[in-house]
């Protein structure tokens, strides 16, 4: 048996059945009003609950939109994650994100991003300052910001925990399923090779059988 199968490290995309997983995640996103995205280890986006976020549309109109959004995206996919702890990211535009590691047996496979949502308790004066800094209409900016979901830190903890548990279950079950399938295939291939060798051996040892098989071969 090929021992590489035992050491095989699967990529996150192979382990998440996104068609199946997508449904509960979309329902969850609808329920809590917070966007959920999944990235693999290389930073490739695998899943997004989608939807246009009004606040982001307002920020997109800013002069420095590219700079603002790029810096947020960079942070979300490169923020170092340790163990199973979630990281909190405060974007330059004032919105907040939670980033959760997706791990399997201590190996980091990717990350889940929850957000944007309001930075709980942020003052209007701070929002006005941000709007001024990026030359966005202050009233429009604050109004859009207030439409972002505003979960308490405790709620975010619970949502993050729920997400972690769902993804952990998917990753674990699918790793097990894939490993079982791969090992089963390996054994099948070995059986096939062994049978071919046996047949070959038999053909060599009994010329009569060989003639018969040759005869059949012509008939098929």
């Amino acid at each position: 048996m090929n021992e590489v199968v035992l050491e095989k490290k699967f990529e996150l995309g192979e382990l998440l059945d996104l068609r199946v997983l997508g449904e509960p995640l979309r329902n969850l996103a609808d329920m809590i009003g917070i966007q959920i995205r999944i990235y693999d280890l290389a930073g490739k986006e695998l899943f997004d609950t989608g939807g246009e976020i009004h606040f982001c549309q307002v920020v997109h109109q800013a002069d420095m939109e590219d700079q603002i959004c790029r810096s947020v995206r960079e942070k979300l996919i490169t923020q170092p994650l340790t163990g199973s702890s979630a990281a909190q990211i405060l974007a330059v535009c004032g919105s907040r994100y939670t980033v959760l590691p997706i791990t399997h047996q201590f190996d980091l496979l990717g990350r889940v991003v929850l957000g944007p949502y309001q930075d709980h308790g942020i003052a209007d004066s701070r929002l006005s300052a941000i709007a001024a800094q990026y030359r966005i209409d202050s009233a429009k900016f604050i109004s859009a910001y207030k439409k972002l979901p505003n979960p308490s830190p405790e709620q975010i903890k619970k949502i993050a925990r729920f997400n972690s548990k769902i993804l952990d279950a998917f990753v674990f079950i699918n790793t097990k399923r894939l490993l079982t399938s791969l090992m089963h295939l390996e054994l099948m291939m070995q059986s096939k090779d062994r049978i071919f060798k046996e047949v070959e051996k038999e053909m060599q040892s009994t010329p009569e059988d060989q003639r018969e098989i040759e005869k059949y071969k012509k008939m098929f």
Partner: protein
Amino acid sequence: MVQMNLEFREVTVKVVYYGPALSGKTTNLQKLHQMFNPQHRGRLMSLETQSDRTLFYDLYPIQYHTPAGLKVKLKLFTVPGQVIHNETRKAVLNGADAIVFVADSQRSQALSNSLSFKNLKENLKINNLDFETIPLVIQFNKRDLAEIKPVEEIKADWGQTRFPTFSAIATEGKGVFETFECVVRLGFEVINKKYDFNRKFGFNPDSFFASVKGDKIENQIDINRYMISPGQFAGLLK
């Protein structure tokens, strides 16, 4: 053999639980899982049949960080004991750093133990592993059953060999951690001799065990309690 990834400051040590079918290899891993500190333990992954017999293997990882920031991963595997699964056993044994041979203590299982032990020797050779030097601990499991090989006989038969022997009742968790501690200490000793591991990476086996043990069992472990004969472990006993 031990995998060292210095770029990621990570060392992986592989311990394989070997033995005949139904000797208690998976039970050893299941009990260990309950004994470890949740912070350090991964999840036990069993690839089994519907009747709970190990089909391919069980895998159970443990992770520990040395004060110098080196990540030490222990991967505990079991093999399927059934005779027909020899190809799987060979593959699981590949790259093993240390082995626990789980024998069934019942006299009726002597032949089954012998065949499996011989099979281990053959499969080590196939994997270019040296039977004469690889850390190998023998666990005589199922000490609660009738008609078992007495401790005196085990001492007489195995006491002069290099293999440490332990008695165990894996279903009750007895002798399980002790066997594990012995095989891992032997494994670390080999790695230390080869790579000067303890000095270079500030690794200390005592801290490792103190750290990975769960709170509930911290004061109950005494490696001598279930040891029948120390074999090569005698040199490491305090």
